[in-house]
């Protein structure tokens, strides 16, 4: 976003992707593995928000909740019910894990909507790590809980015997595509929305179409607010679905 100014001489300068650049927070050095970058900063903010909502918000332990506490309880109940409904009672062991993913994504998405902010969840590196961790966890749980029976996930009993090998191939492919779609869905949604807002913001420099551009930004911002929540929800519920497959591989 800081690069907005250095293209003025050549008329309109589109830099919709510059907002996603990872750079050190202090100084201009290279981005090493433990360098404090804008990623660090915005992830730390997400942690602080989670702590503020779920820990500070509930420190009163009030029987009649305060506003913050009731939002925290709402978030808790929302994810808890999701895990219970989708995975089942035996999935509640993994509830803190799913809650962690959901709260992190929700706060990262919403923090990313702040002007001049950096959206950590728009980075494929971030979402891919989460998706791969989910994929590995689910696969490990599947084999630990069901042993070789986990392969039953790919061997569909309901289908005619002739079709089963073909379906098995398709199932195996779709199983391994899961982390890809899981991660790209979130990163793609976040990136596209922010990039589009940025493009419209650039158009706002032209006086003639700036009112239209501002309107469009407002509309897309509203849409992005919705998308921010929905994508977090989708990520969490897909994790639940994969977890259910791991716990109960026979449909």
């Amino acid at each position: 976003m800081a690069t907005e100014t250095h293209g003025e001489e050549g008329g309109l300068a589109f830099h919709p992707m510059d907002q996603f650049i990872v750079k050190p927070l202090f100084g201009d050095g290279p981005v090493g593995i433990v360098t404090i970058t804008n990623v660090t900063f915005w992830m730390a903010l997400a942690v602080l928000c989670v702590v503020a909502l779920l820990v500070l918000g509930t420190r009163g332990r009030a029987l009649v909740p305060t506003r913050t506490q009731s939002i925290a309880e709402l978030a808790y109940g929302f994810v808890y019910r999701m895990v219970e409904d989708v995975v089942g009672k035996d999935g509640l062991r993994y509830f803190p894990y799913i809650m962690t993913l959901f709260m992190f994504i929700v706060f990262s998405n919403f923090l990313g909507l702040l002007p001049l902010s950096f959206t950590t969840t728009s980075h494929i590196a971030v979402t891919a790590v989460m998706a791969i961790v989910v994929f590995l966890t689910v696969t490990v749980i599947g084999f630990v809980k069901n042993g070789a029976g986990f392969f039953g996930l790919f061997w569909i009993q309901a289908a005619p015997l002739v079709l089963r090998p073909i379906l098995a191939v398709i199932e195996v492919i779709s199983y391994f595509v899961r982390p890809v779609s899981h991660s790209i869905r979130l990163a793609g949604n976040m990136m596209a929305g922010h990039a589009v807002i940025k493009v419209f913001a650039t158009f706002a420099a032209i006086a003639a179409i700036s009112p239209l551009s501002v309107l469009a930004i407002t509309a897309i911002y509203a849409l992005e607010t919705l998308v921010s929540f929905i994508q977090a929800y989708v990520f969490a519920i897909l994790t639940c679905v994969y977890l259910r497959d791991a716990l109960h591989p026979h449909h």
Partner: protein
Amino acid sequence: MATEAADAANGAAESSVGMPQLDFSTFPNQVFWLVVTLVVIYLVLSRVALPRIAEVLAARQGAITSDIATAEELKQKAANAEEAYERALAEARAEAGRIAAEAKAEMQAEVDAAIERADVEIAAKAAKSEVRINEIRKSAAEAVRDVARSAAGDVVAALGVKVDGAAIDAAVAAQMKG
């Protein structure tokens, strides 16, 4: 993306790749901080936040359940009280009815006695009056006879016939009988 040309023109070092998302040199950094973030959030949630919220929700559920039980109990009490009240009311009503009937019967008896007494008195008075009327009637008949006798004696004397008293008496008696 339309940025490629602009980026090339700018020659901006950091945006030499079209998508910063595909700048692999920043991946270790992002992954490292992501792992730190997720571990921190996980620890905070599983150690502090989630047990606390679960505890609060359970406490609230308990409070609601016990409140409902108390309300049920109070409702039962109210129903009992209402029943007792209804019963007392019915008893009172029956008692009132009984007292009213008793009073009515008493009054009826008094009235009957008074009427009887009055009847007796009236009968006594009527009998006395009857006697007096008979007396009056008898004395009237005596008087008529006396008047008839003296009038007959006078009329006969005026006609110049000499008749003794006994004959007149007999004649008057005969006439009055007729």
